């Protein structure tokens, strides 16, 4: 293995040890999303459908609505599970100083930790979906769609990572970036199909959204998992494009920001 790959691999291993350092926390990570799902989303939709679970709301009966939201949960777990809010704190408090000294770049370190987290998250999602399948809440799609669903969602996670990294880097200028993150979360929650299937929205909005990354973040992968084919390449191309744009912007922000960095409190 090349020396640089060894650095990545060791960082992934160490991050893995860090993420699993606390057993209770690890356990909650598995159980948490499922509990939230049942207490909030399942109950909400059961109440909406009421006595008549077979009625159609924009083409969804209760069962398919539940299926949609289960996959939405899985997509969020894999795609958006990683939170890098530590990064802005690290920049503000001057904790990135040590990373600036290591002969392994800051972005490499963070990306490696992200990958490590994704291995963990993939495992947790696997367990979650296995439980839900075992209790007959949802059916697995064909191997083809399952494979593409997972692959595509991992692709999305890379996009989210790029975006979160950007929010983190803005800490070179801003005192607080959490408000940015909250806004980002709310807007995407609505526009990506996480809260409601996009089919519930007016047509003009849906066709407008086609040109933004939003529908490709949640709605699109859910459809793949539900085995409802749409041309796969469009999603990959859209997200790939946005990742490249985001990474380029990040590179520029980093170059400007690092000149401003004062390593406060070191």
């Amino acid at each position, binding site marked *: 293995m090349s020396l640089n790959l060894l650095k990545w691999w*060791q960082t992934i291993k*160490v991050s893995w*040890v860090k993420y699993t350092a606390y057993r209770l926390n690890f356990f909650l990570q598995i159980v948490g999303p499922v509990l939230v799902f049942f207490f909030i989303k399942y109950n909400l939709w059961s109440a909406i459908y009421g006595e008549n679970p077979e009625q159609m709301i924009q083409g969804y009966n209760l069962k398919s609505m539940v299926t949609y939201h289960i996959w939405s949960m899985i997509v969020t777990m894999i795609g958006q599970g990683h939170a890098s809010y530590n990064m802005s704190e690290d920049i503000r408090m001057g*904790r990135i*100083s040590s990373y*600036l*000294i290591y*002969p392994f770049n800051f972005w490499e370190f963070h990306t490696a930790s992200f990958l490590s987290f994704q291995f963990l998250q993939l495992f947790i999602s696997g367990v979650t979906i296995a439980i839900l399948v075992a209790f007959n809440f949802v059916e697995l799609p064909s191997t083809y769609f399952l494979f593409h669903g997972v692959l595509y969602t991992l692709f999305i996670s890379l996009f989210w990572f790029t975006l979160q990294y950007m929010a983190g880097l803005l800490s070179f200028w801003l005192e607080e970036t959490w408000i940015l993150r909250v806004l980002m979360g709310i807007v995407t929650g609505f526009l990506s199909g996480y809260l409601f299937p996009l089919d519930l929205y007016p047509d003009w909005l849906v066709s407008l959204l086609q040109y933004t990354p939003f529908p490709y973040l949640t709605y699109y992968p859910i459809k793949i998992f539900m085995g409802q084919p749409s041309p796969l390449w469009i999603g990959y191309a859209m997200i790939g494009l946005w990742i490249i744009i985001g990474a380029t912007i990040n590179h520029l922000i980093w170059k400007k920001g690092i000149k401003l960095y004062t390593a406060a*409190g*070191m």
Partner: protein
Amino acid sequence: MQSIISSQKLTKEFQSYKKEPGFLGTLKSFVSRESIRKKAVDEFSFNIEEGEIIGLLGPNGAGKTTLMKMFTGIIVPSSGELSIMGHRPSDRDKQFRKNIALVMGQKSQLWWDIPAMDSFLLLQRFYEVSDADFEERIEEMSTLLGVKELLNVHVRKLSLGERMKMELMASLLHNPKVIFLDEPTIGLDLVAQENIRQFILDFHRKNNTTIIITSHYMADVNALCERLVLIFDGKKAFDGPISEFEKILGSEKNVSFTFDSSQDTAAEIWNDRDADWNENKTVVELRIPEESLREVSLEILKYLPVTEFNTEKMPIERVMKTLMENPEILRNCEGSGENMLCR
């Protein structure tokens, strides 16, 4: 030969904004902000040769840490030249980063939630240290520092002293050519301080590493450094050997005598010696010129009931304290040695 570290008129200016306290102050600051520019480091020049140990001293806020940050490439200088091993630190190229180390006493570089050994293994990869070298260095350093048993304990469970030793190991694993130690003994007990000093000295002797150290403990400086650089208000105020530094305030020696009974403070022998008596007139501190030290001490020892006799252990501590309390001394230092840079 070219110096391993050389800086020419290195300057770092920070900009910050004034803000009045409270909510109104916040609103005001949205409309008009008054900016303050402060030179943390002001035209700092010096050269360091390979293998030197330099003590960088100065009061809090004098610019020591800002200098260290510029030396390690963490922050970019506002102006001036800086070259370390032929690299410009702010370029942060990998070859440069591979050959330096920074130890911060105030801040942990180890990962909190995992054992030190895991951090070491990661650093081994980062710095491309071979397995054989790695094992040998870990074995040697952990034995010297007495932390062999603690390598697999979570870092957050270590005491400050133990953690500091791990920090030192972590930053020396890759055998750096230049080491920056920013208050490495801060908050440690006397034995741990002593251990760490001894360890640094050993490491230096074996590897001829260039070391720059900042500390508020004069014992560190006394034990480790031969050369001192003093920084006041971002400017270099002194640069030279410790022996010269001790003489900034004159070459008199401070000596104290304890007697078994009260003495006559008006006696002739105390004249012109800056005699400083305690309340019972049983202890006196004198300043005696170097050349008459022997003669005067002999006389006192011979004729008076002396029970204890001390010469000052660390003159630099007194000099440092005096300078910090009266920085104007440095401004009026005409006629002093060539190492003084008067402003």
